[in-house]
Structures are given as C-alpha cells and as structure tokens.
C-alpha cells in the first residue's frame, strides 16, 4: 500500500471508487424521486423512511465524504494534469474523443454548482433538519410540488440533469477502466452500459420536474 495515493494511478483509483459509490447513490435517489410521481402518500412515506432508517442515517455522512473525496481528488488531478502541458498548443486538439471525456472536470463543476442550489431547495429543509435538531418541512411532497412547478426551477433542473448525463456517460465505464476491470472485448460493452445507466438516471430524474411543471395543479 506504500505511497499508493501519491501515484497518478492511485489517485485515479480514489476517483473511480468514490465515483462508483456515487453511481450507486444516484440509483437510490432516482428511485425515491419516482415515488413523487406515483402519489403524495408514497413520496411522503419514502421521505419518512429516509429520515428514520438507521442504515440511511449512517450512510448520509459517508455519502457526504464520498462527494468531498471525489471533488478534492478531481481538483488535485486536474491541477497535476494542467502542469503536464505548460505550453499550450496553438491549434485545438482534433483527435477523436467524446465531448464528455474531454470535459469531465467542467461538467463536474456544473453538476456541483447546481448541487448546492438543489441542496438548499430540498435537503436543507428536509433531512438536514433531523440531523441538526431543527424542524423539517411537514409535507415534503408539497415542498417538491411548489419548487418544481415553478418553470424557472424546472428548466434549471433539466439543464443540470443532462449535464450529469454527460458526466455519467463517461464516468461509468471510465471507473471500470481505471480499476483495470476491462479489456478489448469489455470496453465497448462497458461503454454501452455507461449510456444505458446515464440514460436511466437522467430520464428518471427528468420525469419529476416535467411532471410537476406540466401536470401538477
């Protein structure tokens, strides 16, 4: 284990493990969200579960740590990579590479920027209050409904979700590649899985603001 985290591959290892952890979190988040489309009772029940289940309470700080580690290592690696090319090219790189793979850090910043707004919209008024001993909103469904039925908010969420789609479309297979869990046959398969995963997440996230802005009365 000696000096593993001082090596470039060791730092990438941290990125992929923390990223994979966040991928699992997104699946849970997306499934809870869909309860809001099902019914008010279902969503409020799901929120109650998230506020009381002991495993979830343990995982909340772990999740926060996962985000912090992923972001801190992204900054460390990006600064390191910028130093590897002190003199820039005059002509931009024309080599074939996906938009997402070239812009992971920028996409990550966009995701992070909206994440802070998102946390202030919901989490700060819901689960956070249980941790700090404040009063959480009594009807989470109503909070979601009033926030997302505002078209400006809904549009912001859609932009955010689809920036996340790009981030995930590269991040998913990239995590496997960094861990060494791929080869010539599995790289194309993992890329397909990447697009499927990113699309499942983005579509299930998109349904919620669309539903509230179009149908919620």
């Amino acid at each position, binding site marked *: 284990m000696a000096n593993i985290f001082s090596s*470039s591959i060791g730092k990438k290892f941290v990125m992929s493990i923390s990223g994979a952890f966040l991928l699992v979190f997104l699946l849970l988040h997306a499934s809870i969200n869909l309860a809001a489309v099902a019914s008010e009772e279902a969503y409020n029940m799901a929120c109650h579960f998230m506020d009381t289940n002991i495993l979830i309470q343990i995982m909340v700080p772990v999740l926060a740590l996962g985000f912090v580690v992923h972001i801190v290592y992204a900054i460390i*690696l990006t600064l390191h990579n910028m130093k590897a090319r002190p003199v820039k090219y*005059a*002509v931009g790189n024309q080599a*074939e590479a996906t938009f997402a*793979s070239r812009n992971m850090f920028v996409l990550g910043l966009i995701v992070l920027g909206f994440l802070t707004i998102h946390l202030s919209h919901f989490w700060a008024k819901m689960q956070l209050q249980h941790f700090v001993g404040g009063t959480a909103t009594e009807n989470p469904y109503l909070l979601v409904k009033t926030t997302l039925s505002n078209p400006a908010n809904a549009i912001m969420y859609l932009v955010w979700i689809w920036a996340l789609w790009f981030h995930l479309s590269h991040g998913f*297979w990239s995590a496997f*590649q*960094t861990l060494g869990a791929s080869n010539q046959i599995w790289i194309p398969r993992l890329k397909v899985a990447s697009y499927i995963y990113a699309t499942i997440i983005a579509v299930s996230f998109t349904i919620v603001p669309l539903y509230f802005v179009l149908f919620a009365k």
Partner: protein
Amino acid sequence: MNLTLKIWRQANAKARGAFETYNVSDISPDSSFLEMLDILNLQLVRAGKDPVVVEKGCRGPVAFDHDCREGICGMCSLYINGRAHGPDDDITTCQLHMRKFKDGDTITIEPWRSAGFPVVKDLVVDRGAYDKILQAGGFISVNTGGVPDANAIPIPKPKADESMDAAACIGCGACAATCKNGSAMLFVAARVSSLALLPQGKMEAARRAKAMVAKMDELGFGACTNTQACEAECPKGISVAHIARLNREFLSAKLKD
C-alpha cells in the same frame, strides 16, 4: 500545390519561441509531408539562410526530427493542424502525404507539447523521458546460461498476439502529445502489458509496473482520464485495453505491498 505554413521556431531550449509564416509553391500532392519540409528548407538555404551558422536574425532551416521515413523508427513527430502525426489515421508523420491537404491550405506545425518533452530547437523535442521510463523497468532480466530451445515454453496464441500488438509501440510520443492531460499512460501500458502477457515477463510484472509508473509520474506526465485520444492518434493503433492491464498490474502490486 501552394501552401502557407505556420511553423513554430525556437532557437534553443531556453529561447522564447514564436510562429513564423512561410509559403511553399509547386508542391506535388504525391510528396510526403517531410519532403515538403525538405523543399522548404532548401528554399530557405537558397535564400541565403546558412544551414550551419545561424546568423543574428537569421533562423536558418527548420529543425525537425526524422530518421527511417518508413514509419518504424518512431523518430518523426510534429503536431499538424491539431493532430499528432497529422490528419490521417494509424500513420507516423513521415507516412503522411500532401494529398491529405488542399491547394491553398494554411498548415500549422507545432512541436509535441509536454512537460516531459522539452523543446530542443524549432520542432525537435527531447523524448529522453521515454528512455528513462524504459530504463526504470521496461525490460526482462536474463541471467546468463545455455540458450533455451525456442518454443520450450508454450504461450497461447491469443496472448502472444495481444503481447505483439502492444510491442508494436515505437515510442514516438504521440500518445502524450495528443493527450489533453499530457499523459504517457499508453506508452507505459504498452510496455508493461506486452511483457506481463508473456511467461518471461510475468515474473517481474509487479516490480516493473510500480517502477515505470513512479518514473512516469516523476518526469511530469499527467494522469489518464480515459479520453482514448491516444489510441486514436497512435501510429500503431495500440488499444487502451493495455492501460486497463497496466492499472490492474499496478493496483494489485501496490495493494499487496
């Protein structure tokens, strides 16, 4: 063909460089890119720019690296119009032909840009960093003794093929030059992978991966973000699947420590 060339000129490693513009005319579409540069240099020499003594204010011919001119030595480089080894796939710059350009084009020619590859002069960069990475572990230790029979150790054909695909690396540096992170991972991976796949190399695989990655990091190359630009620009089409193997070898070696 008549072309406008924007070429990076830099007197030496410490001097400040800048682009200079040149015009070349009557270039055959069948001539190679390096032949076109030869014609430019001849033109510069004939115009009184001494090829040996570079007088004050006179830069002389354009310096660029080349050797075999048949795509196997890995000596030529050049970042042409935003692409390492120019606008064609699976070739080195010496195999690039002027038919890939159009009459009247402006072509921008830059040296490899990487902290690991300092510019020596004009378009020539020092790729000694790759040699240092190889010296750190890109070999197998052979103790003296009798010559073993060929094929005494059976090697499955798919493994031998994959090893040979990685061994095709000519160390030209296009991977680090094109990578947005200036990462040398494809080069290191090709060496580690081609040896790790064979019984002769497997013995030292863990030590090799650790030593070569440590040297790569030390020499200022960036970290891989899996854009696959290196694979797209590699003149030998070496797959990033070898990077996955390098990651495997390195991480398992480190986790055992």
